[in-house]
């Protein structure tokens, strides 16, 4: 039974989706979604702890042994990402009920839950599979359901945002398949582990480098690597609140995982980083993302767009760690996957509550005026998550940035330390705009207390509490990330 957990991790949410569509009842849909999300979390934690004890787990799907059959494989890195995805799902699912009830037409609500389950199945599938083509299929399962989730937004701009994301996302996925196709032509295998071994014997490097380029650009589109991030702000801003919270915390992170997987375990990292200017390119794009996206966020009026641009900047920190490519920086990157996921998840979940109580479908910075009086707990949660976004000591954001700075120092790139600190200061500016509007603006009389529903608030504040928890107890976040980074780098040296 226990060895089937790897398959169940994906099969449970995938089976829940058609079941929800068949039953066509929104309460059942919500119950099934919540149950599946929690089951996934339990499975993910079980897998993660077993990997920490006894090394990578492998599962031959349909008992066809790899490399012929599809292999599901969990190692230190994918175990960590599994926990991140299912943890977010477990927080968002119970919260979703009120938010979806308010934002989506009653006859479409069960479909939204079905899409959410499919998206979860896709994201978990990407993480757990050890097969390059299977990964593409899961990538498209998660992406297609994400487009639908975004298109269900209340404003008509959501449709255009979903359409644009669909074009960019499909191009990205197709570029990825082209890369995989070239690798298949060179190696004759699709199993990632097998492919890595056979690539060492390949003499003709040009198709392999072309494959590397296709996969980098394709996955770069999916993870919103600057300047391929154009789809992200609108998609996050106009999607239903619950979809934004889930996607912002997980989708781009899983794409980063795919990039890490290909760079460090499939391709030989030494030539990628030594003979090509990969390091320089990643550092340049990451710095550009951190600086420009943060600056745009400072001047953005729509709150959800503001935090969406902040996401682009935060992805810059994550890719910076990949570019620096040492133990400390990769630990920082992988920790930031979790820390930023929890932080951004908390922020968008809280904003979901604000949207629920707001008269207009969009929330501007000016519209947050007096929030601290109307919704004191929500405003407090936003402050905590905002501090974590900036990277104030004692919050999760600080821990990952600390490791990134260590990684930059180890490479002798002192100017990068300055850039990280400077962009954190820009983050202070845009977080302050939100805090200032919530606490210091708005008049007394117009502020009637109308806190978000308890169910939503509990999930939101629990995520905000995690931002602080991971700032103090780093045994899971940094411990797991350091194991993953060591696993990735073992091949390098």
């Amino acid at each position, binding site marked *: 039974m226990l060895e089937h957990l790897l398959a169940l991790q994906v099969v449970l949410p995938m089976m829940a989706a058609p079941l929800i569509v068949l039953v066509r009842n929104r309460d059942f849909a919500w119950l099934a979604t919540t149950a599946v999300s929690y089951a996934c979390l339990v499975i993910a934690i079980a897998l993660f702890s077993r990997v920490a004890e006894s090394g990578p787990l492998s599962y031959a799907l349909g008992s066809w042994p790899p490399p012929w059959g599809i292999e599901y494989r969990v190692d230190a890195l994918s175990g960590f990402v599994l926990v991140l995805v299912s943890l977010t799902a477990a927080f968002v699912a119970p919260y979703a009920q009120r938010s979806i009830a308010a934002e989506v037409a009653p006859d479409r609500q069960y479909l939204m839950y079905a899409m959410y389950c499919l998206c979860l199945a896709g994201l978990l599938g990407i993480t757990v599979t050890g097969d390059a*083509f299977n990964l593409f*299929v899961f990538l498209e399962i998660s992406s297609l359901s994400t487009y639908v989730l975004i298109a269900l937004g209340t404003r008509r*701009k959501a*449709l*255009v945002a979903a*359409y644009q994301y*669909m*074009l960019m996302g499909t191009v990205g996925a197709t570029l990825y398949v082209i890369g995989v196709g070239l690798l298949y032509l060179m190696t004759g295998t*699709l199993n990632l582990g097998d492919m890595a071994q056979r690539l060492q014997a390949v003499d003709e490097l040009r198709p392999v480098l072309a494959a590397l380029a296709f996969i980098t650009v394709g996955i770069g589109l999916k993870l919103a690597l600057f300047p391929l991030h154009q789809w992200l702000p609108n998609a996050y801003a106009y999607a239903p609140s619950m979809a934004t919270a889930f996607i912002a915390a997980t989708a781009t992170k899983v794409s980063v995982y795919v990039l890490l997987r290909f760079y460090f375990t499939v391709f030989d990292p030494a030539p990628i980083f030594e003979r090509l200017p990969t390091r320089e390119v990643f550092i340049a794009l990451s710095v550009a993302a951190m600086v420009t996206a943060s600056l745009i966020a400072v001047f953005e009026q729509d709150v959800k767009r503001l935090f969406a641009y902040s996401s682009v900047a935060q992805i810059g920190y994550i890719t910076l760690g990949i570019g620096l490519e040492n133990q400390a920086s990769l630990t920082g990157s992988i920790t930031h996957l979790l820390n930023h996921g929890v932080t951004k998840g908390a922020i968008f979940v809280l904003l979901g509550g604000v949207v629920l109580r707001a008269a207009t479908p969009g929330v501007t910075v000016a519209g947050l005026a007096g929030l601290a009086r109307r919704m004191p707990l929500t405003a407090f949660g936003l402050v905590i998550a905002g501090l974590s976004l900036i990277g104030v000591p004692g919050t999760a954001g600080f821990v990952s940035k600390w490791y990134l700075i260590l990684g930059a120092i180890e490479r002798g790139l002192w100017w990068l330390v300055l850039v990280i600190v400077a962009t954190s200061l820009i983050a202070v500016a845009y977080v302050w705009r939100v805090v200032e509007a919530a606490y210091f603006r708005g008049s007394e009389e117009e502020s009637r207390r109308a806190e978000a529903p308890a169910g939503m608030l509990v999930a939101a504040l629990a995520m905000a509490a995690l931002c602080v928890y991971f700032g103090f107890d780093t045994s899971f976040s940094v411990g797991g990330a350091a194991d993953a980074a060591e696993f990735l780098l073992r091949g390098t040296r």
Partner: protein
Amino acid sequence: MNTAAYLGYWFTIFLMVGGLYILIARGNLLKKLIGLAVFQTSVYLLYVAPGKLIGGTAPIVAEGFTRYSNPLPHVLILTAIVVGVATLALGLAITVRIREAYGTVEEDEILERDRADGE
């Protein structure tokens, strides 16, 4: 090195670049989807063409045959075609919804109407 041996690749590149060009250059949402479909089709060719060996038969073990074509790319591409169909269907569905909401499928007119909303 003869061009004929690489003909499949030239077709692939032509479809790939052509599809991508339509996708980027056209402002009509339906034409963009056509470009996307052409772009995806190029991948089918990229996978399937090298799987065929000249003189190879279907991969059914029988006497008198020693060269077999590789069946795996076909299986993969069947999956990719299904994904492509799903993407296209979803794209068309979203386009229909956009037409209902905006009354047009031209990108510049949609942007204009959004700007008229005051955003």
